[in-house]
């Protein structure tokens, strides 16, 4: 007789792993299935920015709690609280910055506007072509490459059964629960959590659910090691640049510029026409980058729904099935929202509300 788990979790990114650990700790029997490796999806290739300045206003309370979780995870994930500056290079961006940062401050982020002089005192290598700057002392980063190692070690020391190289290709439902199929073995569970990241649309389709999910193909680049050039996380008023210098001296340049490819074929591709302006924007902010070389650029998939808010809750038309994903800034928020998700599944009282996946989606653009 195959074991009937309390819950099967599909996807071994931050969302799947952190929820699995929370549920196992509360006494549930958990199986986690990952098609590739633990923490090699978005959770393992993202830019690692933990910045309140780039979080959405409505998600700020979750981001604040998320920061707290990362702080606890500490050295094992390369967490550093550096502080962060967001730059505006012209009047239009200055206006955008003011509008946006004021709203984020009202939502609870410790953001202030500072003078270019203060910026240049603390970051002498940043361009002098600055019109406005905001600062948040709570901003920092973690090393996303360590996500897999971190969660794998925790899973190894927990009661969670996890299997890698185990893609779920079919799900049968009955009143007793779910039969999840990989190419080889099948597993039984009373509940199901979809945490498939950029592949969520395909995962939901296994339950005949069509969600309006789109995968974005975000790009990140890294330079060779360099003597210290910046100490803070550097962002741009539009949110389209993130830059940080890691402890080893390499500088990571991101900002969500779009590569090519879809989650159905491979890991996405770096696109010359977007990676080049991304790096140019970085070099505009930090002219000294010109002395360095890019040693690698890569992409990862991030799922979004039209309103760009998370899918986090019970899937209305399938009893005992849950979904957690499409979280903008999901690296920052992941460890926290996963705990909320766990509490929701356990029937505990929630500290903050989740995001009903059965809502009507309206387009938020910009």
């Amino acid at each position, binding site marked *: 007789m195959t074991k009937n788990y309390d819950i099967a979790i599909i996807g071994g990114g931050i969302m799947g792993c952190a929820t699995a650990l929370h549920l196992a700790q509360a006494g549930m029997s958990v199986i986690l299935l990952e098609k590739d490796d633990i923490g090699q999806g978005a959770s393992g290739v993202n830019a690692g920015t933990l910045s309140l300045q780039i979080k959405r206003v409505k998600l700020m309370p979750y981001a604040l709690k998320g920061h707290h979780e990362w702080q606890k995870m500490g050295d094992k994930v390369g967490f550093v609280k550096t502080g962060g500056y967001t730059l505006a290079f012209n009047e239009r961006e200055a206006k955008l910055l003011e509008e946006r940062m004021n*709203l984020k401050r009202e939502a609870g982020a410790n953001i202030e506007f500072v003078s270019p002089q203060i910026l240049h005192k603390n970051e002498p290598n940043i361009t002098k072509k600055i019109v406005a700057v905001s600062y948040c002392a709570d901003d920092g980063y973690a090393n996303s490459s360590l996500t897999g190692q971190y969660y794998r070690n925790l899973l*190894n020391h927990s009661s969670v059964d996890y299997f890698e190289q185990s893609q779920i290709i079919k799900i049968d439902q009955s009143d007793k629960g779910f039969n999840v199929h990989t190419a080889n073995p099948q597993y039984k569970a009373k509940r199901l959590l979809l945490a498939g990241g950029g592949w969520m649309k395909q995962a939901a389709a296994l339950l005949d659910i069509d969600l309006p999910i789109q995968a974005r193909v975000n790009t990140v680049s890294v330079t060779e090691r360099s003597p210290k050039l910046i100490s803070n996380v550097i962002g741009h008023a539009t949110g389209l640049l993130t830059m940080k210098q890691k402890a080893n001296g390499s500088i990571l340049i991101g900002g969500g510029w779009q590569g090519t490819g879809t989650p159905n074929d491979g890991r996405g591709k770096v696109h010359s026409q977007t990676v080049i302006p991304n790096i140019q924007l970085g070099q505009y902010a930090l002219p000294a*980058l010109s002395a360095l070389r890019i040693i690698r650029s890569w992409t990862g998939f991030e799922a979004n729904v039209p309103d760009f808010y998370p899918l986090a809750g019970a899937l209305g038309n399938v009893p005992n099935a849950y979904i957690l994903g499409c979280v903008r800034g999901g690296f920052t928020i992941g460890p926290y929202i996963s705990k909320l998700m766990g509490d929701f599944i356990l029937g505990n009282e929630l500290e903050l509300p989740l995001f009903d996946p059965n809502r009507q989606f309206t387009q938020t653009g*910009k």
Partner: protein
Amino acid sequence: MSDFDLIVIGAGAAGSRAAMEATKAGAKILLLDEQAEAGGQVWRAKSPSIISAPKTPETIAGDKLRSDLKLENILHIVNARVWQIEKNNDDLWNIGYLNNGHLHNVTCKAIIAATGAQERVIPVTGSQLPGVIGLAAATALFKQHLTTPGKQTIVAGCGPLLIFTAYEILRLGGKVCAIISLNSKTNWAKASIDMMTRPDLLWRGATWFAKITAARIPIYWQSTVTEIIGETHIESVNISAIDANWSATSHGQKNNIKADSLCMGHGLNPAIEATKLADATHIYSPELGGWHVKTDDFGRTDKAGLYAAGDNAGIYGAGAAPYRGKLAAIAALQFLNIGKTQNTDKLVAKMKSAAKFGLATTKLTILRKGMIENTQQTAIICRCEAVSRQQLEAEISSGAHSPNAIKSGTRCGMGPCGGRYCNDVAALINQTISGKTRQQIGLTTSRPPIRPLPISAIAQNFDYDDLPIPAPAPL
């Protein structure tokens, strides 16, 4: 509209021939190579500062290749380093390259990747010390600069480059203290039977051996370097006899030999970054040097419009490379609908016959399974990021199995070389723990730039207002 019908990446033995063949047939082609002159590895040109030097079969063949290229009026851009290969919206190939500090983008309908091979070195403690270089790297030093690696050199490893390197050092007036050969005399005797296909080359090999014997250089057959000793520079080398699996035996003969330099190499790996980036299928075959792009005799990969010729499609050697280049050009021309069809049976037969010699030499470099046992726990596997065998083993034992996962957790392969030199060894270590085949273990994801890209070239004369900054992220 594409800029070119065909772009050939690599102007070595294979790529140069491919370029000539395609040009003759009337295709609009571009030949790109990161070196200052055509010739690739075997036929590498001398540095222009060296005016006169005795001719060798390599320089003669190389000079001929270079003058042939000029005669054909081929658009050959030297010092052109390809960093990116992608498909554009019109289903054309888009190739990004760096030349004299500037970035260029060109499009084409077909690509022939002829990127050659790179050296494999299985490290031991001390391999990273200054004074230790690869065998192939040493031959490049001889060819380009006519200098020897030190005053007292030990030459170690396997295959023909071992003997060639020792010979070249002697020819250039250097001193070889010892040759440490993984291969046995019998291995060589067996290989020479297959090498009969090229009596001229076999004869050359025999003259190398003769020169080495005449110079009374001690050869330690069936032996390996187990440790390289020195504070800030190599001072001496520990060697040991090996068993049939190439593992140092506990009871076998051990020695310590003083030297100020060591040339050590363990065969060649196909240089597959370009074809990986272009998404072609790759396969692992030890008799072809390990992971290589999968092709038929005509260099067709499983990607439409992508061809491969030369050592990157398997170490068939310098003799077969021009034929493989020509065959790939014929297949590409067919795809492009240029020129007329020709009977290629003879050419294929010639290629196969030439390949016999190369395959026999590659066979001498197939690593036996005990070889990796000679690499100590403290030995540095990834030199860019200083990752030891111990760190890799801990990561693999804790459950990281795929090359990507191991790389993420340890940084092995994250440095400037992009894992070109350590991925192979990391996978050998992975095998000892996981028991998987190399094919099952697979490769890391290929990412651009395939060569480090100076930001100074990217961020030249751009106007901030022209940056295509997308709409701001949702608030």
